[in-house]
């Protein structure tokens, strides 16, 4: 077991092979500057699987029966999963003050509300959405489904466990902690009342078959995820979101993300608290090519 230093180095060729394989699998693109990251972090996988080097590791990723699991594991190593409850408060205000009332009116008859938190990391976002809806208190008798998904196996496990440390609460008002959490296991455990509204699922945004299982959604949150994608992959993912949303449904991206040059399928809607994208009938639709 090495201390820190790699005993093997990723060659230019191996970097390219592994980088392209990851890209084709899930759209994440690692540029030349990330070579060191793959070199250092994938070495531990090469060692763990008792392989002779990165070339053999590439074959492992390409052929092994557990390749999906392995790629999921390396996503853990290669991506940062930093998140916290009530992140981007202005956007959440737009959601609770403007989007939710509109949807509550619109869906009064079938009384269902379906929300997808794509790339939810350790689960703070879908649980935040659930807490906000519970706080609003106007959905008694409704069926509320909040699906949190992420490609990383580890973060999904964490989300299912629902136990969080201090860092997750940096933007959380005390009243939420009191109402929705119980102190346990050296952290705070999310209460069953919130948990019941949320389903956590491991999902690759490129996997059309898995995405089809989701059904139609009223709102999709996908914040600070598409920044990791290149143009082609962004288009592919946004198209999947379009297909998953009901007409009139909302897509909420991170504050530094936009659909400019990606698609004309959504209308940019100026709300009081934020700008959001809406799937409407007034646009002809279609991903920009």
């Amino acid at each position, binding site marked *: *077991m090495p201390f*820190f*230093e790699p005993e093997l180095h990723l060659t230019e060729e191996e970097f390219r092979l592994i980088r392209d394989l990851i890209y084709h699998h899930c759209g994440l693109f690692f540029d030349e500057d990330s070579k060191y*990251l793959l070199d250092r972090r994938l070495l531990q996988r090469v060692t763990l699987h008792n392989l002779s080097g990165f070339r053999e590791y590439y074959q492992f990723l390409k052929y092994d029966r557990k390749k999906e699991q392995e790629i999921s594991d390396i996503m853990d190593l290669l991506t940062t999963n930093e998140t916290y409850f009530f992140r981007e408060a202005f956007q959440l205000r737009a959601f609770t003050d403007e989007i939710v009332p509109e949807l509550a009116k619109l869906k009064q008859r079938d009384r269902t509300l379906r929300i997808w938190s794509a790339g939810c990391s350790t689960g703070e976002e879908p649980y935040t959405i659930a807490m906000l809806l519970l706080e609003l208190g106007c959905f008694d008798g409704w069926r509320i489904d909040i699906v949190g998904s992420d490609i990383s196996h580890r973060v999904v496990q964490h989300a299912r466990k629902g136990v969080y440390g201090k860092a997750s609460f940096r933007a959380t008002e005390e009243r939420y902690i009191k109402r929705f959490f119980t102190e346990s296991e050296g952290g705070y455990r999310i209460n069953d009342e919130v948990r019941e509204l949320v389903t956590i699922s491991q999902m690759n945004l490129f996997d059309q078959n898995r995405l089809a299982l989701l059904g139609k959604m009223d709102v999709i949150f996908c914040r600070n995820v598409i920044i990791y994608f290149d143009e082609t992959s962004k288009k592919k993912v946004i198209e999947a979101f379009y297909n998953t949303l009901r007409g009139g449904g909302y897509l909420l991206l991170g504050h530094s993300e936009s659909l400019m040059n990606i698609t004309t399928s959504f*209308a940019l809607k*100026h709300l009081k608290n934020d700008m959001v994208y809406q799937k409407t009938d007034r646009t002809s639709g279609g991903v920009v090519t």
Partner: protein
Amino acid sequence: MKLGSRDEEERRLAVVALRSHPFPSSTQLIFKAMGDESWRVRKEAVTAVLKAQPHEAEVLEALIGALRASENAGLRNSAVEALEQIGAAAVPHLCAHLNDPDPDLRKFIIDILGNIGCDKCLPLLVRALDDDDMNVRVAAAENLGKIGDERALPHLLTVLEGGEIWLKFTVLDALALIGAPVPLVSLAPLLKESLLRRATYDCLGVLGDAQCLPILLQGLQEKAKNAREAAAMALMRVRERLPAEKQSALVDLPLQRLEGGPVAKKLIDSLHSEDPMVLDALVRIVGTIGDARAALPLLRVCRSERLRSVCIDAFRRVGPSLMPELLEHFPTAVPIERGVTAQLIAEFGHVGSEKLLFDGLLDDSAEVRRSCALALGRLKPAGAVTRLAELLDDGEPQVREAALEGLRGFAATEPATLSALASELMHAQLPAKRRNAALILGALSDGERLPPLVKDEDASVRQAAVSSLARVEFPQVVSHLALALSDEEPEVRLAAAHALSDRGGPDALGPLLLALNDTDPWVQTTALKGLAALGESGALQNVVALLDHASGPVLIAALSTVAALGGEKALAPVEKALSHGDEEVVEAAIEVLSGFGGGWIAAHCDALLAHPHWMVRRSFVRALAMLKGAESVPILDRALAGESDQLVRDEIIALLDRLR
């Protein structure tokens, strides 16, 4: 929806709507939108222009005309973007304006031509090096660099003889971009001018050879930080291009003479740079100098994951003299620094630091606990076994693995203590503990207590026990391993195939042949590798039988095994694999065949040079050059002319350089 609306989104949608109209009827409106105050609207307008290709001459001229819009930067930028993306079709129109009286327009056109990368307009850009306007001259130099055509070289070198510093500065960057050799006599005089030093060193780093090393070593004494750092980077880049024996004589030895002096101190102080490329070069230099004053600055650089391994190499070069300072710093160090220090204690066998390592086993940071466990395993102080055994229950898996690794290090020095620990663990309820027992018993080569663990109810325990059996000698070991090949868990069967392959010997042949029929491809692959290592030609028939229905890694391993067992006579199926649909298989076949000469090349040359996967083309040109030597030059020239992948192109160019 109107273009005159106050609402940005409405204006954007208006442009989108214009796309459905014939371009000639909407051109004026789209051009108006190209100068909109909102970049989103402008972007849509550019997209609309680009969608309307091919363009009439008037449209292109109108776009060029928009470059004059000095009062509307947005419109100008939109025009630049559109013209760049139109590309070759716009070039003749752009070139026709290179004599325009407006210097701003000339500059924009030169920038656009450079970004299009058009080498046809090279003479015009060379002429623009003598333009009346300074900005145009600088733009010409910059864009000649971007185009990267070597024909510009003599003209750029002529500029270096002139007196304009800013222009020379740009020319140096352009020369580095072009990357063709430049005589040292053209560059060395530029160092007299302090403003040009940084760029000159950068250029030498890209283009220089052994001749420029004295200049670069001298450059390490530069007063200006940026020039000194550029010299350091250039020095290490040139060093990398030298053969090993010259690296030592021409770079390392002169650097070592700097130890303890003021130049070394300045370089050490520069380790506070933020640029990882600069830091990488400086860490290597400081390590080579071997100055113990670098201890803490190097430790600080270790915080960067990217630079950690190069720092540890530097620590090794400097040696144990830096330990006192690192140990003094230990109590206030950040976790990663404490981890690195623990590693260095072990590597240097530093006596007297045992307490620090024992205390480190209780550190809050998992990284420190892990490093201290590994260090104790290497140093083996008394009492460490008990402490490491406690760490087998740590909450972090990497710490538990390090503790186990540390414990296994005591097999030779404290077998009794370790044996007692294994006894306790092998009867534990938790499978993870029984797995640890199996691995410790393997380190102790204990053939008596391992067999029961091979039958454990938990697969991870069985896997560890089977792996451990590979290192143990007792009469029934092969039969235990053979039985493990029938385990329901592929991981256990894989461990058994590995163990049999590692052990080798005639007894392993039968079980390995049976493993060829395993349902798991990795068990099959491991068995094939084991058979290749055994070298029993009697196994050839079984392996050949596998070729017909094998794929992926099994087929790759089978091709090598066929060659290893049957030699040149058995190569027919390997040659057949050159036309396999999986590029990994084709590449493996190239490698196997290359071990037997170049007889196969002529029949497959065209197909392999045109192979859709870059990796196959790259491997083939390498094999071609290795096997055919100078004879391969015309084919490589042909390959270069048709190759579009940069990595493969670079490979072919390097091969041609070597062969000519």
